[in-house]
């Protein structure tokens, strides 16, 4: 298109009269391709809009039956009873407890692995460990769920004899193992991004590796490490199959991890497994639960990415 305005030798135009036509068709083709690629990029935006639309649409219908006040203050979640009560608190509590147990495992172990791989490990160990951690993160969550139910729970029952077959402790512990690679890889990236000159300065002052790692590199990478934790929390909150399989699916308003309980995600699975008719309050309730989950993870994700970007800009 721009070529039309360009001054050019008249002789050339006469010699090749099709030149302009070719360029025109080529430009059209270019524009069409750009449009197609743009539409492909727009699919991701459409996905988000679709998620937000469907969650709000069905939740609105749900909140026409259930007052918002009850939803947030009631401590019973019994949607399948003849007198259903819809208080999100027990599900939130289950999510909170399982996530807390998971983070008690994943944060210390993930952080130590990150510091070790970034500051201590010889090159060969790091090269071998990173793909292995990736594999650990690639194991399907249903397999972790099976592991929690069939291996970890019986093991825990030997230590705590009164432990029920479904409990949040076992689900949380296994979930922690699942999140370790996630936390360690983001935290390690943050630590590797700390410039070498800071470490060299520290070593030049006579500091040991441990001192350099804990007093120089870790504080310098702290926002990236915090981002790793926050993204880990988001993962734990949204994890479904481990809790659905190993924690039992009964809503239970308790902070005792040794008890069975349901989480937001496990409840959605439970309803989907039964056959509630489309359009019933029970059907709508999973969208209300999903909306809570979506908003919760959204807050953590935005916070996490904001912190992650912050450390990138620091150097």
């Amino acid at each position, binding site marked *: 298109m721009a070529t039309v305005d360009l001054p050019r030798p008249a002789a050339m135009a006469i010699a090749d009269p099709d030149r302009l036509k070719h360029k025109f068709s080529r430009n059209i083709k270019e524009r069409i391709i750009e449009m197609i690629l743009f539409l492909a*990029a727009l699919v991701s935006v459409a996905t988000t809009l679709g998620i937000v639309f469907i969650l709000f649409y069905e939740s609105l219908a749900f909140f026409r039956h259930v007052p918002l006040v009850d939803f947030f203050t009631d401590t019973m979640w019994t949607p399948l009873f003849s007198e259903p009560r819809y208080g999100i608190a027990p599900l939130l509590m289950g999510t909170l407890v399982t996530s807390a147990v998971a983070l008690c495992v994943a944060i210390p*172990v993930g952080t130590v692995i990150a510091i*070790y791989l970034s500051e201590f490990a010889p090159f060969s160990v790091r090269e071998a460990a990173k793909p292995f*951690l990736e594999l650990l993160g690639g194991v399907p969550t249903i397999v972790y769920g099976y592991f929690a139910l069939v291996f970890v729970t019986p093991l825990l029952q030997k230590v705590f004899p009164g432990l029920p077959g479904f409990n949040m402790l076992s689900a949380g512990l296994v979930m922690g193992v699942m999140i370790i690679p996630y936390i360690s890889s983001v935290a390690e990236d943050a630590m590797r991004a700390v410039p070498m000159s800071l470490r060299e300065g520290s070593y030049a002052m006579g500091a040991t*590796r441990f001192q350099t790692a804990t007093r120089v590199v870790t504080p310098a990478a702290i926002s990236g490490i915090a981002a790793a934790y926050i993204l880990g929390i988001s993962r734990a909150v949204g994890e*479904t*199959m481990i809790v659905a399989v190993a924690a039992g699916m009964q809503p239970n308003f308790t902070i005792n991890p040794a008890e069975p309980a349901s989480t937001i*995600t496990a409840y959605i699975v439970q309803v989907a497994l039964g056959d509630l008719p489309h359009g019933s309050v029970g059907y709508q309730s999973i969208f209300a639960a999903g909306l809570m989950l979506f908003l919760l993870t959204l807050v953590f994700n935005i916070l*996490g*990415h904001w912190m992650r970007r912050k450390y990138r800009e620091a150097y």
Partner: protein
Amino acid sequence: MGATTTGTDLHAGKLRALRALIASHKRWDLFFASVGVLALMFGILAFVALFFDMAVDGVPRITPDFFASFPSRRAENAGILSAWVGSTLVMLVTALAAVPLGVGAGVYLEEYAPRNWMTDVIEINVTNLAGVPSIVYGLLALGLFVYQFGLGQSILTAGLTLALLILPVVIVATREAIRAIPVAIREGAYALGASKWQTTHDHIIPYSMAGILTGVIIGLARAIGETAPIITIGALTFIAFLPPPPVQATAPFVNFEWLTSPFTVMPIQMFNWTSRPEEAFQANAAAAGLVLVVMTLVMNALAIYIRYRLRRNIKW
């Protein structure tokens, strides 16, 4: 004389204290290095325990019959035929949808996108989508695909849902692969009169192929193990038949009926068996889990290998 002696003593004492300090610091170093190795071992041990626990229960069940039988009420007759066929077909739909969309979006964002608010929105959006829990995609599919669009609880719905789920993975991998290509390649192509699309099609996409492939394989490995979104769309768990075959002997040779067929997939089958109380079904669950883990491990290992080869071979 006395003063010098105390001076030397003091000196020696300080030296000893300093040495002790250095030694204690070195001990801390050693201590932390061992803690680090222990933490790594913990991860490795957890995986080994998981794998062997499943292998002990599951290996006796892995026979050719297990792959060739439908699920059954009797555990010893049950198999994963409908599950692995379902998984394969769903993955086919997922790959066919996610690869063009993801690569297209990645190419657009790296090569075409102008610096404006629209591009910012798309970028932030992709980052956030990557963090949305998979079960929320299931709700999207249940509300939109199954009921609003009327696609039903079909292979098509499941495939499209998983495609949306892994779209961020493919987009990010494409972008990273493209970003590694030096500007000189593009400048060279433009200098020879190539248009933007010719540059992209003839140079950018081929050179980033290995990186894109890595992302696609990792994405598919994730999709094949996803359970929650498929359960949420209400996929049946007891399927004792196969979808109509996609290829047939008579014209027009291809058949798209399988897209609308009910189905089951490997993780659903495993979940179904896991949630049954009988011991015998637990063995089936272990066997199915073993097959699933080996599948995802092979896919991930392939992706890691491609990336390793790529890092070694390409020197710009």
